[in-house]
């Protein structure tokens, strides 16, 4: 092949296409590369051919994959047997499980909300404490609650309302508190689930968010007594 350095001749002879199709002999390929390295016009032409080839290959691969999927689906539908209805199917099982979980969540959430918002707590399941503010309480106000109780109600005096509240309890993590309960009131009643706590001392802290920072409102030790 006599290419010289004439890129018009190279393009006319479709050498870039030959290169991409792998039709050049090794010495022709070397010669063409030698030219392309210094010729941006041929380089552009070669790059376009190469780019087209790469993307065409990807388009055909996508088509083949889509066809294979379709065939597999069709084959799956055709090969269904009389006993297929016994085979567990992921979608209905998961959907049913999801509905059950949602129902359970709504039920438990409703119950907890009701327990938390009832001002007169049922004595058989809850014990109530007034938690003094941090300045007066000192480090160790202990609120002892029997393990047989399901809940402890902690009452906090609020010097001011906060945008939102949250509490942390060792062994139970951190939970947000519905601020609507405290709005317009000087006290905040918190009902905390204690039935899942192990016997022993659990530090309880309540804080309020004033829009800029978290302010500590009160803390106590929630002592779960095994025999009480």
């Amino acid at each position, binding site marked *: 092949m006599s290419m010289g350095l004439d890129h018009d001749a190279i393009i006319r002879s*479709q050498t*870039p*296409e*030959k*290169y*991409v*199709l*792998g*039709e050049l002999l090794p010495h022709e*390929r070397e010669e063409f*590369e*030698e030219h*392309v*390295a*210094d*010729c*941006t*016009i041929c*380089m*552009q*032409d*070669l*790059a*376009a*051919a*190469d*780019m*087209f*080839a*790469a*993307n*065409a*290959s*990807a*388009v*055909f*691969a*996508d088509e*083949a994959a889509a066809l294979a999927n379709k065939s597999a689906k069709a084959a799956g539908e055709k090969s269904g047997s009389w006993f297929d209805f016994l085979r567990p199917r992921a979608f209905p099982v998961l959907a049913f499980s999801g509905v059950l979980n949602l129902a359970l969540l709504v039920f438990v959430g409703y119950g907890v909300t009701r327990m938390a918002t009832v001002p007169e707590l049922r004595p058989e399941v809850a014990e109530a404490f007034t938690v003094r503010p941090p300045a007066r309480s000192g480090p160790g106000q202990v609120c002892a609650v029997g393990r047989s109780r399901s809940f402890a109600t902690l009452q906090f005096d609020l010097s001011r309302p906060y945008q939102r509240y949250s509490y942390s309890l060792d062994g139970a993590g951190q939970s947000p508190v519905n601020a609507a309960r405290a709005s317009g009131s000087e006290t905040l009643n918190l009902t905390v689930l204690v039935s899942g706590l192990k016997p022993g001392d659990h530090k309880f802290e309540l804080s309020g968010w004033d829009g800029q920072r978290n302010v500590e409102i009160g803390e106590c030790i929630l002592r779960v007594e095994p025999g009480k």
Partner: protein
Amino acid sequence: MEFRTFDSEYVKRLTAGDPETEAHFHTYFTQFLSLKLRSRRIDADAAGDVRQETLYRVLKVLRVGNGVANPERFGAFVNSVCRNVLLETGRKAARSPDAGEDPPEIPDRTIDLERSLITSERKRVVAKILDELPAKDREILRMVFFEEADRDEICRRLNVEPGHLRVLLHRAKARFQAAGVRGGRIVSQILMVLCNGFTTNVTTR
């Protein structure tokens, strides 16, 4: 990619570290070397190493070596450096096929150029071009690019002349170019970002 000839000014600017020239250097020769290495069916990882080593050696020759004797043939110089790197890589692999020597210390900035060539926009344009072809021509291209079937076999099965493949690719490429798919620019931008780090690394080694 803009048209540009290589000359002593270009080489001088590249030696001095002119950012625009460096960007062009990396974009142009990364593309060139990728094409060259792909045509030899060198796998992407090895190709990345050869590309980086080649560009590194070229810059080293310019900045701490003797420079190039013939700036007008700068591209041919890069090509010859790449050929040497390829030969050395082949020799190393032959010497110790299992445990080669330590790789060059250039950090791994390998771009999957194969992947960067293929974008959803380009695929859309190419799919349109393919859909507008006669069914037989489309099948020929499918056999060439997807099945990678033997050319003689394709010509025999579909009863076409060998030159027909080239003509098909030539026309399709022309339509692809006319569609003016963006992307070269995107690749260039990626390369520009990467080459800044690469160049810094080269100059401080």
